[in-house]
């Protein structure tokens, strides 16, 4: 590029050209790709290396932009956004309270009122309440195949389970747990849920882990029930981890429900 052309481009960017000169440059920009590239680059130099300006891009079809856009829309980024908002609120409140001690007491009072509302309000969304809202035993697969009358013990376990006699059902299921050959996933699920309902949380976790690690077709259900187990125990952060695994793909079992719960936690 000659110094004359450089000066012309500078004056065009600074908008100090006469109307005639400006129109000539605009015409060249339209017809001369090489000249257009020079002007674009010069603009990038000026806007990037000026302390108060900025070079704004508009090419949203750029492949890398698309890739970043996808990442920014991902569930993990949404979760980060939520955490940042929460930390920001906490930090700003701390700063305000540092300057105005009376606000600290107001803040505490507000928190206490909100806590009271959360505990006593009919609209509370405590984790164990989410558990109650989302556990749906009617959608569990059957322990036995239709017409298979040979599996009498499992039929009995299923009937006991359906009448919420979890302790009796569990006695049968725990015996079957390691030896069962057919419907393994269902046995693991019924066992885990019975243990969960009986408050045997550690055992329930082991049962669901067995299902998750079994690589059976129904093993993804283990992740969902493990998330529910943590909700029942009022352990939202552990539950979130499981729910996030589910929301990694919209084709995962209980994707919609997991997303709903995450937004409520």
């Amino acid at each position: 590029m000659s110094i004359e052309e450089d000066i012309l481009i500078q004056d065009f960017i600074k908008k100090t050209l006469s109307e005639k000169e400006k129109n000539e440059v605009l015409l060249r920009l339209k017809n001369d790709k090489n000249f257009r590239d020079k002007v674009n680059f010069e603009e990038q130099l000026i806007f990037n290396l000026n302390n108060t300006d900025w070079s704004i891009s508009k090419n949203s079809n750029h492949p890398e932009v698309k890739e970043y856009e996808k990442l920014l829309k991902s569930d993990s980024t949404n979760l980060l956004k939520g955490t940042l908002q929460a930390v920001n609120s906490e930090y700003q409140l701390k700063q305000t309270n540092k300057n105005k001690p009376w606000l600290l007491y107001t803040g505490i009072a507000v928190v206490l009122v909100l806590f009271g509302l959360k505990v006593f309000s009919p609209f509370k969304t405590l984790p164990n309440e989410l558990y109650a809202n989302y556990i749906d035993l009617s959608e569990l697969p059957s322990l036995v195949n239709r017409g298979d009358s040979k599996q009498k013990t499992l039929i009995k376990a299923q009937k006991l389970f359906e009448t919420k006699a979890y302790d009796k059902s569990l006695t049968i299921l725990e015996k079957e747990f390691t030896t069962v050959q057919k419907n393994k996933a269902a046995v693991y699920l019924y066992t885990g849920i019975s243990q969960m309902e009986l408050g045997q949380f550690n055992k329930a976790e082991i049962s669901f882990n067995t299902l998750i690690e079994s690589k059976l077709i129904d093993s993804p259900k283990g992740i969902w029930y493990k998330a529910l187990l943590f909700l029942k125990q009022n352990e939202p952060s552990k539950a979130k981890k499981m729910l996030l695994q589910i929301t990694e793909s919209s084709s995962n079992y209980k994707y919609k429900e997991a997303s709903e719960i995450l937004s409520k936690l």
Partner: protein
Amino acid sequence: MIEQIHFLTCLVNNDSKGIMEIYTLIFPKVRKFILQNKGQQQDAEDIFQKALIQITVRYKREKFKINSSFEAYLFTTCKNLWRKELKRAKNRVTNSDIIELVATERDMALNIMEQKRWELFTEKLDSISENCKKALTLFFNKTPYKDIVKKMGYNSETAARQRIFKCKAKLSDQIKEDQRYNSLKTL
């Protein structure tokens, strides 16, 4: 280096305790900068959060290297985001055309790429001779040639123009020769 990895890991792992450390260490400086530059408290909070998301997402994708402290890098990212906001606000007032509203995620994706381009340009400006860097910094910040002549001790405005032309050519070559520019030139 250890501090950088610590903070980046906190962000990637969504660790609220670590993120609070970042707030305590860096937010006051960002807030001060934005309040001194036509912004409000809310602007400072928004910019800070955007910058943290931007850094996290970029780090997740490319594990990029930060050449300064984490604190300095985050501050610069915030400063650049605020520069963009100010430019936009200015365009809104002066431009009578309809402004296309871009989706937040798309805008943030563009921010990441713009930051990458800015890093390349500033890195190359730092790598040329001290004299050229000084002259170009004056030039890019719209200092009149007559003032550049005085500050740099050139004989005349013509000499200043020629010197800046040569320095700019050097800088341009270095930017264009860098591999990173290939993906940034079509931005």
